């Protein structure tokens, strides 16, 4: 069975709990908290792309544009005075709907054609963000997204005047996306997706409606990307088209690949490396991206399953038992 399907429920739960504890651990350092929040903002759309790329094997080169749909929708609704939860939900659904509409024609295309059309769709959406001045504010984007009202959750209140507030929000969005990923992958739906990735003709012969499954995965993936975009808009308090251009879509693929496509924790790990590493290394922005490009190249050639894949491999070597090897391979 696929690696992610084996992840123990307690480990996944512990991971999410640890995420929530971060603001307590790093209480004295708002800078670290800022980095971790930004990491979550990238990790959520990365989960969306991971579902598509890691589990169904479809490459989308315009996925940040779906995050953009979520970001603009959330920002516009917030500016119109809508509450934070409905605004995020609308952003998520909006991106999912666009994904569905885009997917219906595009998913009929074969491998290279599909990749080209995702690129074209991403560019189209970017050009719309950049040029529909009356709606999106054009190249300047939408500054001044209002700070959400405090959120009363019964047990606790999320106060957005504190930086912890945004972290909790991002962590909650991440937890939702993470849980969705976990459940989908473990469900029979996830098994069908894995079968499509391994052998489309076989999956169809066993009764899988390949097109409908791909479409559902594509729409869910776009919706999760939209959720990430919405959180990003709230956290940065502004939206600009450049956050959702072609290069950002490439970066998202980078995050998924480096973390490990098809692994539950891959998107978070990839996002953490992408956001945090350069902050600590203090290297020039371009040097960092050159280095990431080199990493991408090396991973494509030698370790297509990314860091999580390497970790799993090392884990197997360490255990060294034939039974373990058979169950894990």
């Amino acid at each position, binding site marked *: *069975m*696929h690696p992610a399907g084996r992840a123990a429920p307690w480990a996944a739960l512990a991971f999410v709990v640890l995420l929530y504890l971060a603001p307590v651990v790093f209480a004295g350092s708002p800078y670290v908290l800022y980095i971790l929040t930004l990491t979550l903002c990238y990790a959520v759309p990365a989960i969306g792309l991971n579902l598509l790329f890691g589990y169904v094997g479809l490459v989308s080169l315009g996925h940040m544009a779906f995050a953009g749909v979520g970001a603009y929708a959330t920002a516009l609704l917030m500016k119109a005075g809508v509450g934070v939860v409905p605004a995020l939900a609308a952003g998520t659904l909006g991106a999912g709907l666009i994904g569905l509409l885009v997917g219906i024609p595009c998913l009929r295309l074969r491998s290279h054609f599909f990749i080209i059309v995702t690129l074209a769709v991403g560019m189209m959406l970017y050009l719309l963000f950049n040029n529909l001045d009356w709606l999106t504010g054009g190249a300047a984007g939408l500054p001044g997204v209002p700070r959400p009202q405090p959120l009363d959750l019964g047990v606790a209140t999320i106060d957005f005047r504190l930086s912890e507030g945004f972290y909790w929000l991002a962590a909650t969005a991440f937890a939702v996306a993470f849980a969705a990923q976990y*459940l*989908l992958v*473990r*469900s*029979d*739906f*996830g*098994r*069908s997706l*894995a*079968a499509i990735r*391994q*052998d489309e*003709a*076989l999956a*169809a*012969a*066993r*009764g*899988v*409606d*390949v097109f*409908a*499954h791909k479409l*559902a995965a594509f729409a869910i993936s776009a919706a999760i990307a939209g959720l990430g975009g919405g959180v990003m808009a709230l956290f940065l308090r502004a939206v600009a088209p450049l956050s959702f251009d072609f290069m950002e879509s490439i970066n998202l693929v980078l995050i998924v690949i480096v973390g490990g496509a098809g692994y539950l924790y891959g998107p978070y790990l990839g996002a953490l490396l992408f956001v945090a590493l350069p902050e600590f290394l203090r290297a020039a922005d371009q040097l960092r991206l050159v280095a990431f490009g080199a990493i991408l190249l090396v991973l494509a050639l030698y370790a297509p399953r990314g860091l999580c894949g390497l970790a799993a491999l090392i884990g197997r070597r360490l255990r060294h038992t034939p039974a373990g090897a*058979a*169950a894990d*391979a």
Partner: protein
Amino acid sequence: MPELLAVEGLGKAFGGIRAVDGVSFRIERPGIYGLIGPNGAGKTTLFDVLCGRQAADAGEIRFEGRRVDLDRVHRRARRGFARTFQECRVLLEESCRDNVLFAAQDKRLGREGLQAMLRSGRARRAARAEADRLLDLAGLARYAEAPASVLSYGQRRLLEIVSTLMTRPRLLLLDEPASGVNPTLLNALHDFLKRMFAERPAVFIVVEHNMEFIMSLASEIIVMHQGRILERGTPAAIQASRQVIDAYLG
């Protein structure tokens, strides 16, 4: 009583070559039917058209009284069609048990999603027990946990057949099940197919080049030649037929 499978005037051409050229036949009763013929006779194309992997240019297919030739592959699969591939296809990354379980799972989109929330423990255990029983009958029990990629080619063929049988097919199309299978495994395959047919009678159509294997397995043989059906009869009658011998030699 309507026939189980009725094929009428089925045609499929690639460029100028008529791979299947006006094939008509009926199958009234469950049974194991051998489909033989020289290379290029159109057997695999007939399978592809029957299960919907390729659209027919002409003709009609009815199964249990309903037309199916306009349905797509997965629809026919949900009607009870199951097939193996000449090139042998299994999910290499999954364990043997998961291969078999996947074949049997409900593939309807809505239900699959719900499985994540409300999985019925009893149904799961029953499916798992059945998968293990079939793997055991096919002699693959000790590989249940192992990924399909560690199996030999012959074992993969067996696994593919076990997977199709797990779907409780009403029409099973086996494309050269014996090719690449060693003699020991061949006997196991023979007994396994006989046993599965006795357990759940259905229409099994088997394309095969191994004459000894197919003649002892099938109750009836259909011979194809140059895209058409040449002859049909009991194994003994076919083996004695002058026409069939000519087709193979000429």
